[in-house]
């Protein structure tokens, strides 16, 4: 009498455990599965999709958003947000371009360093206001979005800068071991960021600050320093994206990068990083970046209207957040 219900319960338990772990697997890697499905569908629907030329194209096209999304992952992991990256990208691209344009160009290295420095300064400005003055990141970076765009227009007088030196253009057009330089930059950035977040003390602290700021403070972590640092880093990566974009389009345009912050945030969110901070990581952000890039590329290849593209991207974002929610419900 007693043993029967126990056995039944055991079986039921085992079954629901299997189902549960399948669900967990899906919640955890759903977005990777989605990427796989997209690749599969595109290779069936388009003959040209799975060609090395096209895949190189995709990587080159996502590299700008990829670099931005890597930086955005750090920011969002601390529970923050940076809306100013499109403007910083435009300003730094403009600064870099101005140094290598015209008849007497400076060294491209100098131009890149100058752009990166400007980016760090811009990011640091946001960081100071967010970490020490304790204004909300949304508001500070919204202000920076406008102010930095204005600085870009002042600096450029509203005109594009072209005729860039070929050394500088190498960044956007050259190849390294057969791989486009912009892709190499994105790959190196993502790899470095992944190592930092997953394997260093700094990375752990970023997660801690985003996971619970008060607990992080109690644990002796310099919370303000960490917050400041992620915005400075975001500025640096925006500048890297800025010079790469400028080199790719062979001109610095004052209206470059408008609304780029939204694609970067979308990639991070699709990759399952929680907007409240503390959860997420670089590998899935890269998956998010690839999904957005593949959708753009695939729908172009298939000749589908860009209107649908936007609808699909929107649905992906909402789906990603739903998966994220399901995962947390499961954990609780």
């Amino acid at each position, binding site marked *: 009498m007693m043993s029967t219900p126990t056995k039944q319960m055991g079986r039921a338990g085992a079954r629901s455990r*299997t189902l549960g772990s399948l669900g967990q697997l899906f919640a955890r890697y759903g977005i990777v599965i989605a990427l796989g499905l997209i690749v599969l569908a595109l290779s069936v629907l388009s003959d040209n999709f799975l060609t090395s030329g096209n895949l190189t194209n995709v990587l080159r096209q996502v590299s700008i958003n990829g670099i931005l999304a890597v930086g955005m992952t750090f920011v969002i992991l601390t529970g923050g947000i940076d809306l100013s990256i499109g403007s910083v990208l435009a300003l730094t691209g403009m600064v870099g371009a101005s140094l290598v344009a015209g008849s007497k160009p400076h060294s491209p290295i100098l131009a890149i360093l100058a752009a990166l420095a400007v980016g760090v300064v811009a990011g640091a400005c946001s960081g100071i206001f967010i970490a020490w003055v304790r204004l909300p990141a949304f508001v500070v970076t919204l202000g920076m979005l406008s102010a930095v765009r204005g600085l870009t227009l002042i600096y450029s007088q509203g005109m594009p800068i072209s005729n860039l030196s070929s050394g500088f253009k190498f960044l956007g057009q050259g190849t390294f071991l057969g791989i486009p330089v912009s892709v190499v930059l994105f790959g190196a950035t993502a790899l470095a960021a992944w190592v930092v977040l997953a394997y260093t003390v700094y990375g752990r602290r970023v997660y801690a600050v985003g996971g619970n700021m008060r607990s992080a*403070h*109690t644990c*002796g972590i*310099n919370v303000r320093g960490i917050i400041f640092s992620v915005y400075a880093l975001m500025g640096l990566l925006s500048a890297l994206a800025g010079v790469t974009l400028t080199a790719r389009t062979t001109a610095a345009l004052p209206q470059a990068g408008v609304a780029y912050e939204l694609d970067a945030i979308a990639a991070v969110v699709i990759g399952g990083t929680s907007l409240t901070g*503390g959860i997420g990581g670089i590998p899935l952000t890269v998956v998010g970046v690839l999904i957005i890039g593949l959708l753009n590329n695939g729908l172009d290849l298939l000749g589908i209207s860009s209107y649908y593209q936007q609808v699909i991207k929107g649905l992906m974002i909402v789906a990603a957040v739903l998966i994220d929610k399901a995962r947390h419900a*499961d*954990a609780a």
Partner: protein
Amino acid sequence: MNVARHEVMSGSDLLLKAEGIQKSYGGVLALHDGRIELCAGTVHALCGGNGAGKSTFLNILMGLEAPDSGRIWLNGSETRFASPASALAAGIAIITQELSPVPDMTVAENIFLGRESRRAGWFVNQTVMRRKAAELLERLNFAVDPRVKMRRLSLGQIQLVEIAKAIDQRSSVLIMDEPTSAIGDKETAVLFDAIRQLKSAGVGIIYVSHRLSELFSIADEYTVFRDGGFVRTGLMKDIDRDELIRLIVGGSLIDQQCAATEPEKATLLEVQGYSRAGEFEDINLSLKSGEIVGLYGLMGAGRSEFASSLYGISRRNRGRLVMDGAEVEINSPGDALKFRIAMITEDRKASGLFLSQSVRKNISLTSLSSLSRRSFINERKEKAVVQRMIERFHIKVRTRDQPVRQLSGGNQQKVLFARSLTTSPRILICDEPTRGIDEGAKREIHAFLAEFAAQGNAVLMISSEVQEILASCNRVVVFRHGRQVAESPVTRITPERLLHWAS
């Protein structure tokens, strides 16, 4: 046999009955046989350690979660609540461990949240609401002003407001989950008066508390859960404290009241004239090697505030700190850790743990610099340290990488102790270290503190429980209104004296 039993039990004053409640999460069975029979006009203690399934059971009663199987009767008819709203409508109200007031609304607005007095159908009638709230609070003898914002209240006062709210909803069943865990003895007395009023009005109360002495003074009946299942039910007057503890912990833990060793003489830390405006003033105390010092006082006496500034979370206005004969400056928790002072804060979820992160990352966080080379973490070393801590504190986990969120309160608290120990502290400050955790974990933590002190370290322990102070401390310092009013070895005081000093 089952049928017969059912008929007997569905007698006249049976208010709520549940049996065979089962629930599993992600394949793990959390509750396999939840039962209770609650009669009108009684206080029914629901006892059990953490992980016994109490919370799951209460969530199901409240309609927060759906059971996998089992039946619930309310006033004789079978029901199942799809949501907390429907449970509330049927007359079941709950006061939970996690209070969720709206901080920027007034007390009156919180009490009538969702049931506002209206004027012309659309506009909130503040005057009527405030008057009704004032009457209610006065009737219950709760000293809370209905016009102030919730943000201004102490934890204890917030608790009273929540209770007033539940009472005003005229519920026939009231579930109180650890109602006294955040309030002092004086407020507890006020609460018990309210409970007695409710009892005489015919309300049935399910009362969950880890403070066993409370149960004996307020409850009429008890039901014990252990490991997700029903163990025994009966009348409070038929059972004694030791028997109840035995039922809760399953007899696995032998009574080991750990008397701390006699302190040695060396002074580890000396606090001189610590003050912080509006919170505490002119605090002087010393911690000696091998000593556990209790910090006792009512809610709002400035105990936690003092401990926070000692650890560097908040700044002091005045005062000196002397360690090993030399003056030291502690302005941040980072400084405190450098001087080998660790702290376990009062609210483990808000200012201690990283709930979504793994047990491993929670434990190793403060000692990462010693577990890394050139800022890269040596994971092998980290895992070894974490494993040692998990074993040292008997933390129940599936894997080291399980999120802390999934652990019971006792195990979460042990994670905090494990973390603080990784930095090899000489002084440990703990604020209400055993609040809201089960009897087993409580004993383990007390045993740990005694052992820690015996190794030549010192502990400063804040507690609102007189019994805890008397049982585990060598010396007690009493705070009242931000001032230090008494200091005495515990051997020379009685609970009555302690209460007298504090109030």
